[in-house]
């Protein structure tokens, strides 16, 4: 069994994320994005690779969208409405709310402004989103009997999620885009420690290690403050969703703290609507915004007001947010044309601009003149500030996540090839995890380990939990008691907790792990014990028979004093009493000679663990050493012990040396 991974998009490139994962007979499509850099059929993923016949409904179990960016959701209406996929689609609530805005905006730009042939209509978008099942964070959704998916918070943009999917024993996580550091309006990605076979992670910044966001914020604020203080106008071209809000919060907060009065404008339309959504979806934002939302909604910006076209050439400083982000057209281009010729003004560029856009031209060197088309050009004299704000995690973040999840395999997508190669090397060498970065339309088969399920008895589990303390108990009773307790502790701490059990496999039944004690019962057999035995002669001197009466009383006193188990008194057998007396004496001798306080007296024997000593009553004990010259004064003590306590054999040696003086 294995996991098959078909990369339809974002393989060794950034754009049109789309990965189809097959495991356990299920097929999930993660993301369905479009490439912004192409206008031909490379724009969409090659869906024909999923199903040659075009019967996507049976080819795919479900589609899961991680967030609303067009390179993750852009091809969805096309896929559902044009290609005809009718199966289940999952995305988080905010994605469901914001994706139509993005799609419609894009469609308008494409069709209305550029006059392209439309790939899908407004109705398509609406129809498509009707089929979407919304997801909530950490909510496990049972797509069908075998497949379950769960969304985790990913940061990045509002509603972005990492998706965990599980079929049978195979588990994967598809991260989508994520951010491991929080920003002004979103929290950091948050995921449980999961047992994973495969992690498919983005790698936009595969080799970059970013410094603290504070430094970036500081640079940004300083540039803007300097510009407006000098009377200049600031143009901030952004995408309507995400960065715009982030920067806006930053500026609004700074304006508030520094008591600045320069107006901040938000170009109308999409942004206003987006802000409204942001206000509603406050539960998906960062901790701080959530906390303060009861007092004031952060998205009710104090210093931000809508922009009017007539204000473009109004005198005085201002800050303007305009779409689209890469100055590829639309309002931001219009304003750029007006403001670029003045050196007082400032244009901040987003961290990433697609080649071919004006943003890209401005980023690559500082041009003095930009040709818009054959006839028109713009003189660029304004200052350019490049924003390094990025909602993607950096290479340290990727490494952290991989290390944290420790999956068995990693697939890198959504990145540039050479950088991915470097990251792959790092993951393999530093973390020892297999890593791949397939190209588009490449299929990758990952073998997964097989797990066998076994049953476990309750007793075994319980024994696991109390295994450690049985050691403590033993040490409390051990001979070397007063000696090195520290060592005992160290031994205890160093010992790996091993649970011992017996694996029982019966025919037609699942294997079962049982506790050692249960084995006999389960198998229905009797226990046999192996014991070592040795009958040890001990020389007893001055043994004088005493009168019955005196003997009894004395023994009585003695047994009360030393024998804890008073049962021996019940038997009035004189012999027993005498034997007990002997045992008492033996005990005290042993205690003084071995300094062992743990020897206990049972009814007719001395005990230390499995070591038993009793007075031998049989005349011809088979364990007795045949010795010559054994006199009357010798009493035999029969010792026996289990092999596990073989070390106690030494006690016999001690016993042999005894010469007990019997006072009675």
């Amino acid at each position, binding site marked *: 069994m294995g996991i098959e991974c078909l990369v339809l998009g974002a393989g060794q490139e950034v754009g049109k994320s789309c990965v189809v994962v097959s495991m356990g007979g299920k097929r999930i499509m993660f993301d369905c994005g479009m490439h912004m850099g192409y206008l031909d059929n490379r724009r969409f993923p090659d869906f024909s690779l999923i199903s040659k016949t075009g019967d996507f409904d049976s080819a795919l179990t479900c589609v899961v969208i991680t967030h609303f960016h067009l390179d993750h959701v852009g091809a969805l209406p096309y896929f559902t409405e044009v290609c005809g996929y009718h199966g289940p689609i999952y995305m988080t609530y905010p994605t469901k709310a914001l994706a139509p805005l993005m799609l419609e905006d894009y469609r308008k730009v494409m069709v209305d402004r550029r006059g392209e042939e439309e790939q899908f209509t407004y109705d398509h978008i609406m129809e498509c989103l009707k089929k979407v099942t919304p997801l909530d964070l950490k909510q496990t959704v049972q797509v069908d009997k075998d497949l379950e998916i769960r969304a985790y918070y990913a940061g990045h943009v509002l509603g972005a999620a990492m998706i965990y999917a599980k079929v049978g024993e195979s588990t994967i996580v598809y991260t989508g885009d994520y951010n491991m*550091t*929080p920003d*002004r309006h979103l*929290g*950091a990605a*948050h*995921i*449980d*420690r999961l047992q994973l076979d495969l992690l498919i992670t983005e790698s936009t910044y595969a080799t970059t*290690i*970013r*410094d*603290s*966001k*504070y*430094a970036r*914020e*500081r640079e940004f*604020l*300083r540039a803007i403050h300097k510009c407006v203080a000098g009377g200049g106008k600031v143009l901030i071209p952004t995408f309507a969703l995400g960065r715009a809000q982030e920067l806006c*919060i930053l500026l609004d*907060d700074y304006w*508030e*703290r*520094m*008591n600045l009065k320069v107006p901040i404008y938000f170009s109308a339309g999409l942004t206003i609507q987006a802000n409204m959504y942001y206000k509603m979806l406050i539960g998906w934002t*960062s*901790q*701080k915004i959530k906390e303060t939302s009861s007092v004031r909604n952060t998205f009710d910006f104090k210093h931000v007001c809508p922009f009017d076209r007539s204000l473009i050439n109004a005198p005085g400083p201002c800050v303007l947010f305009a779409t689209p982000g890469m100055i590829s057209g639309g309002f931001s281009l219009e304003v750029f044309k007006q403001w670029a010729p003045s050196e007082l003004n400032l244009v901040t560029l987003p961290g990433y601009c697609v080649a071919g856009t004006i943003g890209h031209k401005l980023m690559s060197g500082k041009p003095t003149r930009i040709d818009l088309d054959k006839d028109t050009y713009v003189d660029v004299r304004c200052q350019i500030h490049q924003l390094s704000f990025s909602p993607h995690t*950096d290479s*340290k973040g990727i490494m*952290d996540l991989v290390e*944290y999840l420790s999956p068995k395999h990693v697939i890198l997508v959504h990145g540039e090839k050479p950088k991915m190669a470097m990251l792959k090397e790092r993951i393999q060498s530093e973390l020892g995890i297999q890593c791949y970065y397939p190209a588009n339309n490449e299929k990758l088969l990952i073998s997964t380990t097989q797990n066998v399920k076994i049953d476990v008895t309750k*007793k075994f*589990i*319980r*024994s*696991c*939990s*109390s295994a*450690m*303390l*049985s*050691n*403590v*108990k033993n*040490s*409390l009773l051990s001979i070397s008691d007063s000696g090195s*307790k*520290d060592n*005992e*502790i*160290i031994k*205890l*701490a*160093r010992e790996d*907790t091993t649970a011992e059990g017996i694996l029982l496999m019966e025919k037609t039944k699942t294997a079962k792990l049982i506790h050692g004690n249960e084995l006999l019962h389960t198998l229905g057999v009797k226990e046999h014990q192996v014991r070592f035995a040795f009958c040890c002669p001990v020389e007893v001197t001055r043994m004088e028979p005493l009168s019955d009466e005196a003997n009894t009383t004395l023994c009585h006193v003695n047994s009360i004093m030393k024998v804890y188990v008073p049962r021996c008194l019940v038997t009035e057998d004189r012999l027993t009493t005498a034997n007990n007396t002997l045992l008492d004496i033996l005990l005290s001798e042993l205690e003084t000679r071995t300094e062992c306080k743990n020897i206990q007296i049972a009814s007719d024997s001395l005990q230390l663990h499995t070591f038993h000593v009793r007075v031998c009553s049989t005349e011809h004990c088979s364990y007795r050493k045949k010795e010559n010259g054994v006199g009357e004064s010798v009493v035999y003590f029969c010792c026996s012990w289990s092999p596990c306590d073989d070390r106690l054999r030494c006690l016999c040696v001690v016993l042999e040396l005894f010469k007990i003086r019997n006072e009675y």
Partner: protein
Amino acid sequence: MERALLERLQRRLSPGAADARGRIQALYSARSLIGNPDSTESTRRSVVDALVASLRHHQDDAAFVHHALKLLGDAAVLCRPFTHSVVAAVRPFLDGGHSLTADAVAALSSVAEADNGSGGEGFSLVASALDGDRILSLASSPIVAVRSQVLDLLVRSMERGRFWDSFGHHTTIQVFLGLAMDLYPLVRKRAVDGIIAVLRAAAGDVDRLIVECCYDRAVVLLKDEEKLVRLAAVKLISECGELFAASQGETEHSEQMDVVFVQLCLMARDMCMKVRFEAFIALGKVRLVHETVLLQSLSKKILGIKSGKAIVECPAKVTKISLSSAAGAFVHGIEDEFCEVREAACRSLGMLTIFSVKFAYEATNLLMDMLNDDTEMVRLQTLQTLSHMANYDRLTMQDKHMQMFLGLLADISASIRCLARKLLQLMKLPDFVSFRDTIDCLISNLEAFPEEEEDIFFVLFSVGKRHKNFSTKLAKEFAKEIDLSCGELILDSNEVAAKLVLFISSSFSNGQRATDIPMALYSYAVPFSGRFARALRGAVDQDSLLVYLCSHSKKIHKICTSLMPIHIAISDITCKRNVLDFSEILTCSEQTQEKCVFLNEETMQSIKLNLETVRKTWPLMKSHCTQVVQNMLRACKEELETIAWNADDGAASSFLDFAALYIQVIQLVNEILGKSLPKKSCSIGMTVLDVIVERLDMNLRRLRLLEIGVSPQPILARLTSTISRLEFLCEGPSNLSDFAKEVKHACTEGTAALFSNTYVFRKLLELFYPEQITFTGRFKQKKAEVLVIGNDSENPLTFVSGLPVGIFFRITLYEILNIDRLWLLLAVGGSIQYVFLDLSQFEGCDAVRSCTLIVPFHGTPKATSFLLRASIGIECPSEDVTNHSKAGAGSRFYISAYVLYGKEQFFLMKNFANLVIMPRIQYRLGDVLSMTIFSTSSFNKLGVHLSNFSNSHLENLLHRLGYDSTPFFGTMDKPSQEGSVSAYCAQSPPLTPPSQV
């Protein structure tokens, strides 16, 4: 009821009762019987006994036993005496591996818990019931409830410093270590808590190996799935780390600590907020870490580490841990989503800076970034951390930081601004540019938040003191600027004040360097001395500051005086150092004047001109042009009062008061001269002179209250006392002028002779001349304000004649020392009631103290209304009592006749309320309307106090008094600060208060 309940309960619990439900119900009533505070001891005893007995009989009923055990536990808590029987009853259940054991342990646990230390035997009882073996067997019970209960009991008693004698440290640790690997997360967590408690209780007295064991276990638990366990493990790691460090002694660093540090850094990336928080707290406590490791935690990039230090081997266990795991822990920490974590990271960062200069340098970068955090709490913590670093001399400000930091001064939050400025005081600024930026920022700070002036000045002062060279440089630039501006620069601005405080500060601690600062700046600073002194928060008082400034501006002074020829000749005034408490002030006269000039140039100049005029009158006086002199003086006085009216500057008022009194004294002297001199010397009406001299005497005393010694030339019967006063003023006879000596001599010869002998008198007169004395310092005027609360013209206080009336006084005293004895004088007609004022009742300092008190006035007369005059008297320390018993009216002490402030209160019945004649009040210069408008004879004036009066009222009143209201309105539009209007009217037809008794 109680009995009935008890009986039913006993019946239901009896051995024979088979009803299981009934037993459970019996427990309810048992609980209420025990819990009811009114239950008798015997009832409770019976209930407990019944329960104990029933436990024995119904052992098999698990549900019942479960509840009964719980109840017994609670009973033991409620009533201590039952502890014994409860423990005994619970004991049998401790054996055997069933879940009831857990309940039994829980019951014991609550018994032990109830015994909170002091002398209770609960714990020892429990300890006896649970010996070592039993605890071990319970702790290794297969039932999780039993384990967790026993563990809980152990940990709790451990945390309270109770030990189980039955087994020592080692076994306890063993048990905890064992249970720390339990299957159940809560048991694991509790066991780790237990280890921490043991380690703490041992207080360092633990074998290092054991600590290492605990540490190893904690390391394992750091990877636990349950966050609570991870949290506890982090705490344990921190605890072990401290023990390691302690055992390490003072060595530079230990590899073990490196490992601890890296482990904690790893935990700082945990997904659980609480774990991260705890990890950062723990990171702050780590010591003896190698610098490379510390630096690594500040950088996300893996630092190139030389000589194979990249991996440390944990000595105890053979696990290798890469130092790179620590990478950027703090970078992540300060960017954390939760402000608690950021705050903790920030604090720990500060603590670690102590160990390494390089680390501190790098950390500053991070901390500076944090100043832009969106949470105020974090910004505050950052500032505190920076201050902490500055205190340990670990703060090096770089250029790039200054901008960020100075931005903080404009922060919206006052506490941030304040803390930022505080930090500024501790900082060492890298170069002149940032110094100048800092100063500019502070000045704009001052302009934006003028209410924080004192704090800002103080900071400027400290900054200047710290950066002498920079401020000297800036001072020179500023001085040049002033020169170039040709007087166009307005010196009376906040900016200038701020700069001046900076400039003067740099020389303040080091006298020799003072010359570096252009002298002119000191003199410019003089007028701000009040503001500066206030801002310096008692570090230096205004007087000494003034003197300091003056002494430094000596050279420039000459130019100043030539521009503004003011030399105040206050004749006859000696400066008495010890009495006047001016000891710290140098005697350099002109400088003082200069201060006054800057204080309120215009006012002071006119005062001085007036005084100059007074001086000029003296020759005239000697040539007996009494009337001319009188006119001149009167004109002077009027003018002074105009000035007083216009000057709302409180600082000038004392000086004005002094000037007015001085002129009054001269006037009196003039009068005396006029009356006593030449021709009709024998026929002088003694009584007239008496009155005048007494007035003179009184005025002299008042002058003394202004803390200035005055020695005029009295010539009448009371000369002796005046002489003695002079002696007192001049510290003994040796200092007396020739004149005074002669007068004394004359007096001792006999007063009669003096008066009959015109020659002596003339000789004296010849001897007398006004001596020009200059003095320095501030006028400290002893004065008092008495305000009667609830008494205004329209609603006067009411009284019942013959009965005492309580009067609310609000008394404010200025410049009264602790040793002064003050009396409140309540006078109606001739009778005076004296009330001693206990200064301890007053709040405030010597400068101003105030108090509100109710004083009963006993002598209410039989009249519809009466005038009560309240005034404050001060006891004169060394007066000749016999000579002055007049005012004291037979009392043993003498209450000085000069009253600090008197206020007459008008008591009348309601129907008289519309009579709006107000009593005469002592006036305070500067508070009242000028008298130029009405008064030509300034002595007998009737003060009309008009509070809350509309103009029509006033007009009405004045009309009734026979005044034309027109001139009045010329000055009426300036109400004094209390919202009332005060006016002095000349009293041409003496007006008797209509209703006075």
